[in-house]
């Protein structure tokens, strides 16, 4: 048995998924040292502060790497599809996974991308990436 693909938010991550439904891209920011964190963390990995709040970011990034998946890993996935690893412009190594919504031929390391919001029938909104 395989469970649904929908996000399964935790207490830590619910603000991210709630913001996505409002078409905002948001990540945790440390109020002490300003380091940005994604996925969310319980305390700042740089200065140890627990004073973290969610702050919207630009949704601009670049492609670090990708894979085009042909194997059917889940009945709800139409193949092939491209998974990309994106580095957000706001901070080095601030990474997000998502699907690439441009033409596959345009996928190269460094391709600039922007976040787009996909409202899903399961009532979640996913962040996807367009060149």
């Amino acid at each position, binding site marked *: *048995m*395989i*469970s649904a*693909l*929908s*996000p*399964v*938010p*935790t207490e*830590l*991550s619910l603000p991210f998924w709630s913001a996505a439904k409002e078409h905002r891209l948001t990540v945790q920011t440390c109020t002490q040292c300003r380091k940005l*964190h*994604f*996925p969310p*963390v319980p305390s700042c*990995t740089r200065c140890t502060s627990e004073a973290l709040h969610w702050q919207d970011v630009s949704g601009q990034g670049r492609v*670090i*790497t*990708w*894979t*085009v*998946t*042909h*194997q059917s*890993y*889940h009945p709800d*996935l139409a193949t092939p*599809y491209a*998974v990309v*690893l994106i*580095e957000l412009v706001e901070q*080095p*190594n601030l*990474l*997000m*996974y*998502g*699907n690439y919504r441009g033409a596959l031929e345009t996928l*190269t*390391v460094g391709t600039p991308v922007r976040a787009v919001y996909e409202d899903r029938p399961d009532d*979640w909104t*996913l962040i996807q990436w367009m060149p």
Partner: protein
Amino acid sequence: MQFDRDDRRWWRDRAAIVGVGYSDISKQSGTTTSSLAVRAIRDAVRDAGLQMSDIDGLATHQVMDCVNMGEIAAALGVTDVSWFHDESGGGAKAPAVVAQAALACGSGAARYIVVYRALNGRSGLRLGGSGTDRPTVSTELQFQRPYGMLAPAQNYAMAAQSHMSRYGTTSEHLGMIAVDQRTSAALNPRALMRDPITLDDYFSSRMITAPLRLLDCCLESDGACAVVITSSDRARDLQHVPVNISGWAWAIGPNDFSNSDGDLTRSTAHLVAPRLWGMAGLGPADVDVAELYDAFTFSVLVQLEDYGFCGKGEGGPMIASGATSIRGRLPVNTHGGFLSEGYIHGLNHICEAVSQVRGAARDRQVGGVEVALSTAQPGYLNGMASAVLLSRAS
């Protein structure tokens, strides 16, 4: 050498592997993980020339895919195990658990420890993302799974793509790993896949997740392996030439998401390597065979670089040169590895390393093996890795 708690070289060659055992490796064991474990354990104890009553320690690792250790002790009929270690985890763990057992035997905490791994990895819980959820609940997976990023093959594919983009590594390089390992497996009666393959076969195998094709991916298999470990002093009185545990190392390094250093072309193995070589007083040039964790072909390539067998970015050319084939300068995965022998999660690599050091690997024996490396996953996906270095007792 005087004991110094800050110098791990003291532990060099303090413990040895004195027995190896297997159940059958198959795609459908038709039996329980307990039965598989008991077969492999009894085989290893017999190989060591010991009785079950000599065994006072048990160790394993699992991802909730094997019955618990107490049940296996019961199935073995042992009623007084005085040391145990039951580690949660998969690809990072086999060498680490062997190292724990080496520490226990070297320190006197236990006399004879059996390390085993048993799984119905094809007929039971499949780790590759086919048919079931990944067994480990991860904080990060909720930000990957909704996008269809849910199989380890995809993590390795993205690392391989990164390596191709930066260093010009090619699909031919990856394909040669699969071809070479199949050549070795053809010499291994235990191997599940023994029919030789060519690069053409590789390129006609279906794409799983680019750049990885079917023949880049390990098998899913049912089976068990076990090794018996004791102090090097005790090992000298047993029937086989002792295979000393000369070095071990663990590391948790950067992962491929929340704790990334932004470079997927370099794995945690680069942190394991200097500790391993330093403890053993040996280096890459001393290694005669390398049994490298090969859930996917790329794993082999990146470890050749990160353990220092070649420079960064030179893994592909090294493979293309034939150096890592069974007749090459550094034979890699002489049993066929996960790609062709079967997937017993890394303990089968250690068993093969022991056979090679003993000179007991029959048709696939490499000449004059003194030192063998056996590794865990290089770090993808969670940043964890480990390795052991084995050598023939003088």
